[in-house]
């Protein structure tokens, strides 16, 4: 399975699966634990990966949401994510992909400019969230948000589909662009 497709498997009953892609294992682990601690009616599954493509010899449930974690402090994580994006099917970008830029709190350490990440997210028409996963409270809030998004992407919220999540692309300081 070189290219990840969103709809090639049947969904499991009451189960939502998220794939966290990032270079920093410790951070991903912490985020996953916070997500699992969230109160949620659905059964959550968190998969962690350093990069794509995923190995094909493993039986894996349907992946409902891919979160690309970019550490603003390292150029390598950005490059890694850019390489991974080529292994994702285009229909995933209908709301089932989200970029997470961590390390935004301490701007002095940043080696990746925010505009670069914003441009990347805009190119792939996917929402971009800024946070600092090192801080406990931020991480919990972000986990809450991700769990909610995951439930929508997995189709566990009646009446709302993943495409509705594209409204996250709207910026509050700019008028809504016509292409959305």
């Amino acid at each position, binding site marked *: 399975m070189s290219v990840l497709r969103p709809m090639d498997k049947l969904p499991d009953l009451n189960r939502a699966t998220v794939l966290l892609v990032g270079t920093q294992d410790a951070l991903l682990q912490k985020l996953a*634990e916070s997500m699992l601690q969230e109160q949620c009616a659905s059964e959550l599954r968190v998969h*962690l990966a*350093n990069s794509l493509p995923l190995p094909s010899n493993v039986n894996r449930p349907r992946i409902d949401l891919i979160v690309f974690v970019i550490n603003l402090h390292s150029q390598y994580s950005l490059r890694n994510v850019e390489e991974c994006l080529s292994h994702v099917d285009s229909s995933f970008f209908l709301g089932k992909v989200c970029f997470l830029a961590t390390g935004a709190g301490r701007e002095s350490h940043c080696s990746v400019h925010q505009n670069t990440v914003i441009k990347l997210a805009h190119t792939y028409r996917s929402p971009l969230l800024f946070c600092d996963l090192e801080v406990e409270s931020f991480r919990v809030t972000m986990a809450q948000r991700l769990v909610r998004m995951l439930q929508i992407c997995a*189709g*566990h919220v009646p009446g709302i589909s993943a495409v509705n999540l594209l409204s996250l692309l709207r910026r509050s300081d700019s008028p809504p662009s016509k292409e959305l």
Partner: protein
Amino acid sequence: MASAMEQQGEKPAAGAEDCGEVRDEPQAAGESIEDRIRLLLRLRAQTKQQLLEYKSMIDASEEKTPEQIMQEKQIEVKIEDLENEIEDVKSSFEVKSLALNRMKLSAALTNNIEKMGTESSVLTDDMKHIIKLHKLIMKSQEESSELEEKLLGIRKKRLQLKQTSRSKLLEIQTEKSKQKKDLDNMENSEVIKTMQKKLQMEIKITTVIQHVFQGLILGSKTNWAEDSALREIVLQLEKDLTTI
């Protein structure tokens, strides 16, 4: 709620995915029926939503963009052109092969004739016979065509005659109906009635005058039978005017 976490490492050291930890919170033993029903309802809503998503996905993949349709049309037109070309080439090839066969046959025939000699060969006799028959056929065909032309001419004439007679008959009919109408009009008109009344009056007056004259002649006691002119007058006076 059962949550599971599994780690997928793409690190060269870890190799494939390895399962990190799986946590299963034991479900409460005394889970009430209401909770179960709620769970089932939620599951139903989830399945419906997921079904909707898959359906929309299938619809989206089935729909064709206008560009694809255009391309398909172009390809169809091209295929048609190519098929026409193939047909043309096939027919021309057949025509050529037929011509070639004929040429071969004629060449073979000439060779045979030369070999067998000109005099008293069966083939030449046959051919002559065939030619004679052909000429006969042509002649009879010409005759039959002439006859057919004549027949056609006659039929044309008959048709023309029929048409003219029909038109004449129509004219006659219209004329007759016109006359009838005129007569009806005349009889019904007021002028005719008054004329008839006048005529009746005149007839009555003349009969009275006739009677008067008769009386006069008889009263004069002249022998009107002897004078021829007088006799004629008296006899004339005897005429009944209504019979005229």
